[in-house]
């Protein structure tokens, strides 16, 4: 899902870095098992924010509200590459810290690429019906609280179907797990860049994110 060339962007492009990238990709390929629970639901506006109909999923914050302007439904999901890669990273931390770093980086990109694929497929399905899909948005982006992750897990039964657990600090375990929501609309949707709500937008040189 990720190639060593993509990874080399972060690790450097000399032969040593490429070799490290190759090893990292191979390790993630061996351990990652991409799975997801995905759903669609109608949006209801409530006093304190938006809610997905028939679920406990509330979408708080101005940034998500802006993204979902003009949308009457959402596509939401929870995706993970599983616990095996976490175990590998833990083990590498003790024996080969450089590789651990590269694998961690690669695993993060891996789950993102998987989410890209889910998003792309859903967009294609919707476009067949003449609808459109915004880009995805996750808890912790902009002003959508990280704590909302718990309601994604509840609404999607991601604990039961994917074995996702929350740490006390609100992080999802396995660590390479993403929950996200995207708006569905009959008309065109906001095409805003992810950078618009990124906390690093002031300091980023624009060379890393695919946006």
């Amino acid at each position: 899902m990720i190639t060593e060339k993509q990874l080399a962007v972060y690790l450097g492009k000399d032969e040593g870095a490429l070799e490290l990238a190759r090893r990292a990709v191979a390790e993630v390929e061996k351990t990652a098992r991409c799975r997801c629970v995905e759903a669609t639901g109608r949006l209801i506006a409530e006093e304190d924010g938006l809610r997905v109909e028939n679920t406990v999923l509330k979408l708080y914050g101005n940034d998500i509200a802006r993204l979902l302007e003009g949308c009457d439904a959402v596509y939401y999901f929870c995706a993970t590459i599983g616990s095996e890669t976490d175990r590998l990273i833990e083990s590498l931390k003790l024996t080969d810290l450089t590789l651990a770093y590269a694998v961690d980086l690669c695993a993060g990109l891996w789950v993102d690429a998987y989410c890209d694929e889910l998003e792309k497929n859903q967009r294609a399905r919707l476009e067949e019906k003449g609808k459109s899909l915004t880009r995805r948005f996750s808890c912790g982006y902009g002003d959508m609280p990280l704590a909302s992750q718990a309601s994604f897990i509840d609404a999607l039964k991601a604990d039961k179907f994917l074995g996702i657990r929350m740490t006390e600090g609100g992080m999802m375990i396995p660590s390479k797990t993403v929950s996200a929501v995207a708006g569905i609309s009959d008309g065109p949707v906001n095409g805003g860049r992810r950078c618009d709500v990124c906390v690093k937008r002031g300091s980023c040189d624009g060379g890393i994110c695919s946006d």
Partner: protein
Amino acid sequence: MIDFRGRIILDGATGSLLSERSGAPAGYRLEKLNVENPDVVYSVHRDYVDAGSNVIYTNTFGANPLKLGAETGEVIKAAIEIARKAAGGKAYVALDVGPLGKLIGEGGISFDEAYENYAAVIRAAEDKTDVIVIETMTDLADARIALLAAKENSSLPIMLSMSFEENGRSAFGTDIESFARTVSGMGVSAIGINCSVGPFQMLPMAEKLLSCTKLPVFIKPNAGMPRFENGRTVYDIDKVQFCDAMKKIHSLGVNILGGCCGTTPDYIRTLAEETAGVAERPEYRPVRALSSSTSTVIVEGMKVVGERINPTGKKVFQKALREGDFDYILAQGIEQAQSGADVLDVNVGLNGTDEKANMVRVVEGLQKVVSKPLVIDSSSPEVLEAALRRYNGKALINSVNGKKSSIDSVLPLAKKYGAAVVCLALDENGIPDTIEGRVAIGKMLVAECLKRGIEKEDIYVDTLTMAQSAQKGSAVCTLGALGEIKKTGAGTILGVSNISFGMPHREDINACFLSMAKDAGLDLAIINPSLINIKPSDYARDFLLDKQGAVEEYIAYAAKTDSVKTEELAPEGAPDMTKAIVGGMGSLAKETAEKLIKDMSPLDVAAKHIIPALDRVGELYESGKIFLPQLIAAADSAKQAFAVLEEKMKESGEAEGDRCFVLATVKGDIHDIGKNIVKAVVSNYGFKVIDLGRDVDYKTVLDAVEKNYPCVLGLSALMTTTAQNMADTIGLVRQKYPDLPVLVGGAVITPEYAKSIGGIYCKDANATVRELKKIFA
């Protein structure tokens, strides 16, 4: 009483039906309906009872304090009441316990917190159901904690099921076999698989589960794979397809059947109608197995137990333990796993450190970074239990021995935690010297295990490896006893490396002993895994078999490899006594003494000839040019020379040296080879040695000091547990003799520890001599 060997129809989905009938949104805590809308909960239960369910699960899947807070007790009580009413005496009621939904361990809630939450659920139910069912577990840690909480807070039978994905692993990576091996010995009445997938995917899983446990098995699949549509979960197979697959599962020998997410009373009715009768299951084939949460090792052929997580004799490891450098310790585990260990022994006993806390930390840490099963190695039952509680797998306990106190404290732990156990062939009288003696203790321990319900395949007898250099016939005795034990059908285990203690090129001897032990039927070899590929040498084999002249041949072989020239030991021009003693030639030493004594006093012979020879031996030993057998042989030769002098002194009425050294291996410790070497060497320097033996009571030591005062006391201890007894002995003696010098030594004693208990550290026999010389100077 539920007959778990009979045919039982469980219920189907409760959550999906409750959502539908109550209109609650996805993600709502449906357990609250027990209080808010009991009628809808009743209707779901009632429909399952009418459809033919013999056991219904209470609506308490997520009813725990972490999800429902203070409402938990009320919700659970209401749930049981509703289920009882709906069952109407026609079905049994099971208290349903689902996962807490929190990460357990680093970053999440603690083991104790998780336990308390499960215990609160169990206690709230007050044993008012017929059975407890722990279900849909994806984390084996979670499952085990729930199970322990249920066992320790209830007397009801327990059913336990985990949830596996299509690839046969739970979301946390547990495979079906490791689940079955781990849980089967922990006192559950039935074990099962539920949720995640449909019955077609569960068919091979059921087959696997049946082959890994002799317990009754239950299967409760979803109505196919889930899909979410506008807040509703939809499943893809109907009741006919569901029951077709379930019939196949039943015919495998699974007699406890039900449905999970997406199944309805209709599915259950058809299931009950179409799976009548008790299907026979294939005969269970017992195997020796050890498991982590993600992998199982079947002990067939010899398996390797990595021995390096152990501080004994390892300075860097000891430092890591003292300084809390757990990464170093965990890395040892990873390295051993990578170099071929099948199982890892974990021993963190080091005096002056908190063994229990360290053990828990290392066991928890290792489980995150290696998938190999662990051997929990400690002499303290308290440490063993702390580790067993937290170990998410089927562990091997190292060890129980033939002492009654050990049997009574360790075997109940093996039984309770479903662990396998190492039985050491020693008892109150120490380690028997004979094959028969060790076999007798081994057999007695096997019988004790069986009596307590520990399965035969979970028993490994250790016939004990002793240093061949210090005790001739050691290897033959160990292996002979091993062969005898093997015939009884019990498993066998040996620490291999000890055989070569005190010898050069230890890896040669270890490799050879390993190969011989393997031939004798060894199941588990505790060894440095990097040694498994070394080809055994014939010299080592002859040494171990006590062949004539084999010690010398082996040492010559090793010396050649080391290019140490033997003449270096006692050069051409060296005095005869030096040649005799360094060469270990007792009769020559005696003859030389007899010659010398004609022209000089006995004390001069000792001071000018024997002592310098012994000093030379000491130097050679310390520089690694000679080894333990030669040291002992030299001491024995010197003894023969001394005997000549003593005889002469008696004749002339000269007094025996008044430099007295009282020596003992402390209470509780039966490892006395080191002490015996000290005795042999020290007595040659003209000190009077009072040897009190091993496992010596505090009072006996005090009495001996009183009798021989002024004197010096020497104490040895080899185990971390007995190091404390060393401290206590010193404490008692010092009450009366505050200035008494005490020399201490032994594998687990460090200079720092020695100082902390008021002793003078001696690393070996030569150091003891140096200290004694200083004290008596």
